[in-house]
C-alpha cells in the first residue's frame, strides 16, 4: 500500500518535471540580460531549497532522536542528509556552469560559494562519520549531535550574502525582496520546479529510509547469528 503510494508520487514527480522542462524551455522567453543560460537557475535555486529542506529536517529529526531515542528518527535523519547531498551538489555544479558564462570563471572564492561548499563538505563528513561508528547507539547519538552542528553551516550559507559583499546575485523571490525584481511567470516556474524536486526527494527519501531500516535489520541479524 505504502509502496504503491510512493511509486505514484514518483510517477507524478517525473511527469511534473517533464512538464516543467517543457514550459521553461519552450514557453518562457530568454532573460533579457543573460540569455538562455538563466534557465539553469530553475535547477540551481530549487536544488538548494531541496537540500536546505532536507538538512533542516535532518537537524530537527536528530534532535527528536536525542529526546525520544527512537531508531526511526535516526534513520530518517541519516536518509535526509544523504538525499540532501546530491541536491546540494546539483546546486554547486549548476552554479559553476552558470558562472562560466556570466562571470567567465568556473569558481570564485565568494563568501556564498565558499559557504555552500563548506556545507556540502560538512555533510559529507557526517555520512563518513556514520560509516565509521560500528555501535548503533553510539552512531545514532553522535551523528545526531554532528547533524545539529552541521546545520549552522546551512544558516551561514543562507545569510552569507547579507553579511558580506558578494558577487553572488541577490535574492529574487518575492518573500525576500517584497516583489518587483522577478517576472511573475519566472517566479512561478521556480516554485513549480522546487515542488517537483521536493516530491522527487520525497520518493528518494522513502527508498533510502527503508534501506537504513534494512541495515539495522542486518545488524541485529548479525548479532543474532553470532549468538548461537
Amino acid at each position, binding site marked *: 500500500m505504502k509502496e504503491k503510494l510512493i511509486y505514484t508520487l514518483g510517477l507524478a514527480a517525473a511527469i511534473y518535471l517533464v512538464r516543467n522542462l517543457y514550459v521553461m524551455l519552450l514557453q518562457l522567453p530568454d532573460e533579457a540580460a543573460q540569455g538562455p543560460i538563466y534557465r539553469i537557475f530553475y535547477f540551481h535555486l530549487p536544488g538548494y531549497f531541496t537540500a536546505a529542506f532536507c538538512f533542516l529536517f535532518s537537524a530537527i529529526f536528530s534532535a527528536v532522536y*536525542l529526546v525520544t531515542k527512537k531508531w526511526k528518527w535516526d534513520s530518517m535523519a541519516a536518509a535526509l542528509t544523504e538525499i540532501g547531498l546530491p541536491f546540494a551538489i546539483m546546486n554547486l555544479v549548476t552554479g559553476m556552469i552558470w558562472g562560466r558564462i556570466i562571470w567567465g570563471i568556473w569558481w570564485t572564492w565568494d563568501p556564498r560559494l*565558499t559557504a555552500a561548499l*563548506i556545507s556540502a*563538505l*560538512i555533510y559529507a*563528513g*557526517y555520512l*563518513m*562519520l556514520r560509516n*565509521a*561508528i560500528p*555501535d548503533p*547507539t*553510539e552512531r545514532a*547519538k*553522535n551523528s*545526531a*549531535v*554532528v547533524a*545539529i*552542528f*552541521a546545520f*549552522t*553551516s546551512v544558516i*551561514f550559507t543562507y545569510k552569507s550574502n547579507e*553579511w*558580506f559583499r558578494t558577487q553572488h546575485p541577490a535574492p529574487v523571490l518575492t518573500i525576500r525582496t517584497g516583489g518587483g525584481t522577478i517576472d511573475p511567470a519566472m517566479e512561478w516556474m521556480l516554485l513549480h520546479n522546487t515542488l517537483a524536486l521536493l516530491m522527487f526527494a520525497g520518493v528518494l527519501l522513502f527508498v533510502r529510509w527503508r534501506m537504513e531500516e534494512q541495515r539495522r535489520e542486518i545488524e541485529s541479524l548479525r548479532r543474532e547469528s553470532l549468538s548461537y
Partner: protein
Amino acid sequence: MIRHALVIASKDLRSELRTKESLNSALSLTIVLLLLFSFAFDPASEDVKQWAGGLLWLVYSFAAILIITRGFARELSNDCLEALRASPVPGSALFLGKAFASFLILLGVELISLPVFGIFYNVNPASKPLPLIAALVLATWGVTVIGTVFGAVTVNLHLRELMLPVLIYPMMIPALMAAIELTSASINQVEPEMIWYRLLIGFNIIFTALSVALVDIVLVD
C-alpha cells in the same frame, strides 16, 4: 560547574607541563611548516603581506589538530575516560575544562611561534595589536571549542585520527577566515572591517553554547 571545569583544566595543564608531549610536537610542527611554506611562497616577494596572515593561520590550524586530538585521547589509556564519566563531574564541565586547557596550550604555541613567523617572513604581525589580539584569543577559542566537541564525538573510534580533521576543518573555516582577515589587517596596518569581529564573537557564542548543551549527550549515555 565552573569549579569542576577549572579542576579538569588544571589537571590537563599539569600533566601537559610534566610531559610536554603535545606542546613540543605542536611547536616543532609549526616551525617545520613555517620552513616548508617558505619554499612554496617566496618570503622575499613584494606581496608577502597579502598572504602572510593566511599562511600563519594555516600553520596554527595544523598545530590545533595535534593539540585537540590529544585532549580526549589523553584519557583513553588506563580507561581514564570511563572513570571521568563515572565521576560526579558533569560532561559539560569536563568539556569546558578540556577546551580551556587546550586553548591555553594552543595559545602558548601560537605566541611562541609568532615572532618566528615575523622573522622568517619579514613582516610585523603586531603592527596593529587590537585585531591581532582579537584574532589570537577569539579564533583560538573558537577552534578549540569545535575541536574539543568533535574530539568527544570521535573519541571511541578506531578511525579517530582520520575522522577528526575531516569533520572539524570545514566547521572551523568561518573562524579561520575571520582570524586571517584580522591578522592581515594587523600586518598591513589597516583598520579591519567590523564584520570579522562580529563573525568571531558570534561563532564563539553559538558554538560554545551548542557544545555545552550537547556534549553531555555525547559523553554520558
